[in-house]
């Protein structure tokens, strides 16, 4: 039942992007995510799409697995698109609706071209956002990612934020997920063998049917946590004090090249955004 849930979608390949420092990848992904909100026109969306495709090609990850990540937000995509189309009014009073329908007095559904454009842009923005971040998870192992987070959060130590503990919690969470999925699978099978039925009945009945799964899972979770705590204590684990890292992260020429290209690209995006704001009547920047 839960077999299909793959977590950590790391795709093993030998590429420029895979070899980059995880910290740089994380920062550039953040830059991308911020940058995409400054894209206001379809033309610039085109530029970003080309940029995204280039990165995917360099990263040597199959396009299919990048698109797969969109599957998870399909509901969100459809919902936002529908809401935008239905509730967006015209750009100005002069704009006539493309289509309108009034099922009863005082209530009309009107669809404007403006709404369609807005919905389309939001759609593109969300899709690219997810695709861009999936490149990060496809090319970086969860372990590297936690190291990167830990390293990037280090400055927060000044305000006594427990950076190391935070990273530890993150990496433990990640490492527990596969074994919990396996355990869930096993418990489900065991209860099914005792005649449990998860697939029929109403909502309440189905929700109740999950009790025999959740309780053993919870008990198992506590058991594992306790075992792990004991194992760490018996190895004299002390947290962040003078702890070195097995894998030392180093910046290489790749990171500088990639960083330079990405920063240059998004400077361009920000510039175009500024221009569109200033001279709003440049149509290709607006639409």
């Amino acid at each position, binding site marked *: 039942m839960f077999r299909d849930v793959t977590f950590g979608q790391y795709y093993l390949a030998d590429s420029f992007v895979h070899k980059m420092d995880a910290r740089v990848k994380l920062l550039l992904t953040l830059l991308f995510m911020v940058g995409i909100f400054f894209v206001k026109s379809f033309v610039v969306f085109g530029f970003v799409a080309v940029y995204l495709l280039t990165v995917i090609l360099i990263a040597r990850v199959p396009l299919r697995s990048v698109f797969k990540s969109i599957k998870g937000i399909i509901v969100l995509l459809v919902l936002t698109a529908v809401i935008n189309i239905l509730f967006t009014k015209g750009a100005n009073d002069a704009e006539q609706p493309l289509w309108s329908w009034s099922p009863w007095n005082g209530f009309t559904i009107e669809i404007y071209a403006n709404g369609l454009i807005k919905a389309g842009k939001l759609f593109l923005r969300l899709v690219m956002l997810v695709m861009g971040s999936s490149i990060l998870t496809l090319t970086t192992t969860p372990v590297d990612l936690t190291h990167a987070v830990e390293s990037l959060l280090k400055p927060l130590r000044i305000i006594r934020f427990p950076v190391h503990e935070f990273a530890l919690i993150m990496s433990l969470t990640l490492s527990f997920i596969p074994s919990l999925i396996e355990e869930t699978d096993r418990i489900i099978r065991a209860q099914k063998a*005792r*005649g449990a039925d998860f697939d029929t009945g109403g909502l309440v009945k189905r929700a109740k049917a999950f009790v*025999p799964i959740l309780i053993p899972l919870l008990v198992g979770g506590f058991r594992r946590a306790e075992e792990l705590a004991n194992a760490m204590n018996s190895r004299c684990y002390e947290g962040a004090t003078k702890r070195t890292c097995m894998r030392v992260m180093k910046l290489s020429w790749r990171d500088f090249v990639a960083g330079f290209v990405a920063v240059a690209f998004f400077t361009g995006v920000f510039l175009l955004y500024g221009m569109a704001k200033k001279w709003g009547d440049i149509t290709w920047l607006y639409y």
Partner: protein
Amino acid sequence: MSRTSRKSKVIPKAQPPQNAAIFAQDLNFTYNPKSPFAKHALADINLTVGKGEFVAIVGHTGSGKTTFVQHLNALIRVQSGNLFVLEQDLAAKKPDLKKLRQNVGMVFQYPEYQLFADTVLADVCFGLKNFGIDKEQRQTMAKDALELVGLEFDKIKDKSPFDLSGGEKRRVALAGVLAMKPQILVLDEPTAGLDPRGKSEVLSLVKKLNVEQGVTVIMVSHDMNEVYENANRVIVFRDGMIAYDASPRELFRLESEIESMNLEVPAMAAFCNELERNGVRIPDKCKTVDEVLAATLWQREARNV
């Protein structure tokens, strides 16, 4: 002793022989079919298990034994081939799962990890309730099952299953399966993680069910000693195929083959083999130290006379 062939033939659907608890014909199973991760877990399994047999299934991790065993309860559905369990056709589109699962009890590895209810009684009754048995009858069936596994019903029924010791938990979990009075009992390493005493208690319980109540037992195990002592028949899985299907005595005579499969020759079997090499004939039914000793002494006396 039979070695199954690799050739796959299209055989018209056969009816299971009379008195067969399990009848598999060209059973195949592939995990993640049509994907780069496809894994052929079962290849052309042909097998008949008669009612009342005690069959041990051994083999390496990933040899397909767990996959096969899960077919018996329709936890994994038949992909290709035929499988009949207690005259029920599992390759059919909609087999009666309730009826099947009530008759085929499945004890998973570490079954105590499936306990969930507030009280021992409620947990043992979980299966019975799912199979629609009414409340009063549930109570008596649960009582029988708990006493069968050697727990005192009145003392334990209202306790929380999480307050029990490891051995007691396992027995409660076992009772939860046995309460349904299954005709076939499938056990996946039932003794893993138990102390020697707990092991022998579980095994003698299983043996008792097999001998006294005629329950067909399918036991997956890594412990060759317990396989040797308890099973009437051993099936060795290798790479998704049945490599050997023989009585324990016959099988463990093939010491070099057993070791080449990274399995262990049980101590008693090795001892008997050594005796046989020295000219003592050990009848196949002699398995315990006492029996073997008796046979040896008897032969010595017969020779001396």
